[in-house]
């Protein structure tokens, strides 16, 4: 189906829809990348056979199920294990040695989606002998993905790719040590969950989660406009203890934020930064 030429009216309708969603359900997408939101909303519009965003707004206000669908469309959960393997390799080389000097560690993985990233960190920390003294908080605002993350079960079809990633990331064992296959799925070792707390948390509307030694938030900030990026980075800053770390996605940066200057770059390419000790 072809979407008709966008009009200024459509942009007004979109603004009103986001406002309505916030007032009715408390989800605030007003400072997300508008081009992204618009694409997803129009996708939902075409899926539901409605002819305008205003119609969609009416439906969303009166039908929570319709709202749930849209939320699923708006939260992009694309993820993988050991995504960008060199990020994990750099963690091993440049961050882990320092973290080893701590008696107890807390890590917050924000926007963790269905948990692949969290299990990757659990494996890395285990191999580095740090897991037993680490507490991982893994959060996302999408209930469905947090439920999925808690199971630690993933489709077997990706395992080849994940294995290659794991090896490139400096994995020390055989990746198959960490899961067993069952039909079309792999089930990760429940031991890996021992130190993880999965929780629903919205970075836009909820307060600081915990005081931690490291925040990992990858490929979430790209969906926010600059204002919201800065707000969320300030929340992370509040959460990170002096000398602590933050790891971002490969195209995200602290530059242009209030954190710039107060953090030093550990790995410019892999986007790992360290909070200065004042």
């Amino acid at each position, binding site marked *: 189906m072809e979407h008709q*030429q*966008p009009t200024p009216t459509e*942009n007004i309708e979109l603004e009103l829809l986001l406002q309505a969603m916030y007032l009715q359900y408390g989800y605030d997408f007003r400072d997300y*990348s*508008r081009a992204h939101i*618009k694409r997803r909303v129009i996708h939902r519009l075409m899926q539901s056979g409605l002819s305008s965003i205003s119609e969609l707004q009416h439906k969303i206000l009166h039908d929570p199920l319709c709202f749930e669908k849209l939320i699923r469309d708006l939260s992009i959960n694309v993820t993988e294990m050991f995504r960008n393997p060199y990020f994990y390799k750099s963690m091993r080389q440049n961050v882990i040695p320092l973290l080893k000097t701590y008696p107890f560690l807390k890590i917050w993985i924000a926007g963790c989606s269905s948990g692949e990233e969290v299990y990757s960190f659990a494996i890395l920390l285990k191999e580095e002998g740090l897991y037993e003294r680490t507490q991982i908080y893994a959060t996302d605002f999408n209930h469905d993905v947090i439920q999925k993350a808690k199971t630690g079960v993933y489709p077997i079809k990706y395992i080849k790719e994940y294995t290659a990633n794991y090896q490139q990331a400096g994995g020390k064992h055989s990746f198959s040590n960490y899961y067993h296959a069952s039909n079309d799925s792999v089930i990760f070792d429940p031991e890996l969950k021992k130190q993880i707390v999965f929780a629903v948390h919205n970075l836009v509307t909820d307060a600081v989660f915990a005081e931690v030694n490291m925040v990992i938030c990858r490929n979430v900030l*790209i969906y926010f*406009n600059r204002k919201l990026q800065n707000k969320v980075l300030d929340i992370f800053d509040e959460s990170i203890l002096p000398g602590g770390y933050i790891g971002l996605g490969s*195209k*995200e940066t602290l530059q242009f934020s209030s954190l710039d200057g107060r953090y030093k770059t550990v790995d410019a390419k892999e986007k790992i930064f360290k909070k200065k000790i004042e």
Partner: protein
Amino acid sequence: MNKQTTYRAIVIGASSGGLHALKRLLPALPADYPCAVLVVQHMSPHSDNYMTTMLNMASSIKVKEADEKEVVVPGTVYVAPPDYHMMVEADETISLSVDNKVNYSRPSIDVLFETAADTFGEQLIGIVLTGANADGAAGLRAVKNAGGYTIVQDPEDAESPVMPAAAIRLAKPHSILSLDEIIKVLLKPGFVLPL
């Protein structure tokens, strides 16, 4: 070609064979070219920025990998980073996303073209070059529907004819030209460049 329109941006989509085509097209543009140029070239998600570095060295116009939230300005070529979709926002900044592949591709030409059409409307030129899939066809139609000017590389002239052919079928572009002719049009006084 509508003489009243000033074009402010050009979007280019290419897939297999695209690197060769871009290596001819981009070096033809002068450093002070009065349009911003945004490029999606399909590539492996694991590629580094070698292609961009190489194109930059070969060209007088500045060629760079797009950064997120960067403001789009004339005289610069922005290449979508591997494994990210590139979008243009209403305030003429770039956003990136890792959404699902569109037409089996990330970056996808359609995603760039549709969002750029939304922002630049009739001040946009859309160009679909060589390729072996159908990405870019719907995007080019969006450029045309928004009043922009549309060009497709002549399938006869393209290394891979499938993508241009698909774009021609769906978008019915204003012109179908060889790569040399496309370069001539982009440099023709009174079109993008001043008279």
